């Protein structure tokens, strides 16, 4: 498999010189997106996002937890990611890889810094100092590139379908009590760069062939997270151009939420 990657890289680059992609998409076209809301009943919120062949499940599970000692009045948001061995031949069991940690942190940053979830309003009434903890688990089920955008879409969708549970007699009762009161819809747009050619929503083959990658998360109004990846470089003008694209595509993606 990996040995074939080298040949695929040349093919992807040759096609792009002609302005084409292997799956006949336009350079700025996303693959087919579907969002399945609330596939799980064991979690407060959940969603499966399919982006072409890439499939990501995100669960948003909410528990009563002790706050961090230095922030006693803030709720807890925790994002974790598993690149499951069933998603890709080279994903392995064991401690989280660099890639999975990066993915979790990029998704977490987008959601956290957007302040869409108001951590200051998550102290539990009558909870003796306990606060709500929202656990986002990102499960990559099938991998064909761009798990960033698929994960952010699924994470956002899972939060939108979640509610805070009830809290009675010192215990959590897993029934919806109060909406999360999200302030905005965070989405991310990932672009692979091949010199002057920019490819939105890269497939796996495009990802490995690209010089660099950038993920830009936005709310309706502002940027909320960015992450550049891979060896290649970008100029300031390129970045600015990509930000415009991220806002434009962001509006498109938000329509799915």
């Amino acid at each position, binding site marked *: 498999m990996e040995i074939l990657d080298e040949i695929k890289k040349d093919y992807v680059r040759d096609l792009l010189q002609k302005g084409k992609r292997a799956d006949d998409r336009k350079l700025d076209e996303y693959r087919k997106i*579907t969002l*399945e809301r609330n*596939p*799980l*009943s*064991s*979690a407060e919120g*959940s969603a*499966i996002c399919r982006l072409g*062949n890439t*499939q990501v*499940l995100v*669960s948003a*599970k909410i*528990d009563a937890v002790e706050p961090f000692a230095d922030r006693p009045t803030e709720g807890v948001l925790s994002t*974790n990611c*598993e690149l*499951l*061995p*069933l*998603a*890709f*031949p080279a994903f392995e*069991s064991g401690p989280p890889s660099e890639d999975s940690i990066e993915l979790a942190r990029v998704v977490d940053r987008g959601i956290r810094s957007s302040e869409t979830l108001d951590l200051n309003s998550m102290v539990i009434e009558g909870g003796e100092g306990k606060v709500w*903890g929202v*656990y986002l*688990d990102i*499960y990559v*089920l*099938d*991998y*064909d590139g761009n798990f960033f955008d698929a994960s952010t879409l699924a994470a956002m969708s899972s939060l939108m379908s979640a509610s805070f549970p009830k809290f009675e007699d010192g215990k*959590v009762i*897993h029934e919806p009590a109060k909406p999360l009161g999200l302030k905005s819809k965070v989405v991310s747009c990932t672009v692979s760069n091949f010199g002057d050619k920019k490819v939105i929503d890269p497939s796996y083959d495009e990802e490995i062939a690209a010089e660099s990658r950038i993920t830009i998360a936005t709310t309706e109004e502002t940027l909320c997270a960015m992450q550049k990846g891979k060896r290649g470089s970008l100029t300031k003008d390129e970045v600015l151009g990509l930000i415009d694209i991220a806002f434009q595509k962001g509006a498109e993606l938000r329509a799915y939420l």
Partner: protein
Amino acid sequence: MGGGTNKPVLFVDGKRLDGRDIDELRPIKIKASVLHRANGSCYLEWGENKIMAAVFGPRECIPRHRVDPYSAVINCRYRMSPFASLDEHSKAGPSRRSTELSKVIREVFENVVIGSKYPKTAIDISMEVLQADGGTRCAAITAASIALADAGIPMKDLVCAVAVGKIDGKLAIDFSKIEDNYGNADIPIAVSSRNKEILLLQMDGLMTKDEMSQAMDMAINASDKIHALQVEALKEVYTRKAQDKPDEQVS
């Protein structure tokens, strides 16, 4: 296992909490070939259980010292997601329980997979429990069997599995989580579909020999129903692909 303080009435007029008879399975939905990257895959819903299983291989066996010159080696990974149950968010990663289950499930498939056809290789089976409601190992085995067939791995037979339990002194098949919590015994059983050979058998709780015999009969009877659903799911893949329809959504 074990009791709580507020034990619900588990048995009313011969019917169980969810209205099932003693020998009635929960609804089972199986869909094969749901992942594009894996060589074979299966998504299975069994009551409130939701399982994703996938197979990679036969492929090169790594590390090298595990190579069997005469047969394929089988690797199994059974994992419970941290969000699988209504209880609190659990720790990710292997537990002692999932390690044990991975082992006994591997032994099931070592029986039916014809490993001699692919000496020196590895066949990797992954089972992810996305949502749990009692009987996840049996659901995982049932799903993995389909993922193996979907991958084209040669097998003597399909495998199906189901648990029998004891509630209030009565045997009943396919416990849900709540029954499991208050039941007196739990006996997961996996059988080969054709010969009804028992490939996995675990038991905890107090049982007489007669009860064990009855439990095995119940599991074997139920296996025919599960097998029929498995066959249907495998044939559905063929018709789905033949009709050239875009794949439907999972669930």
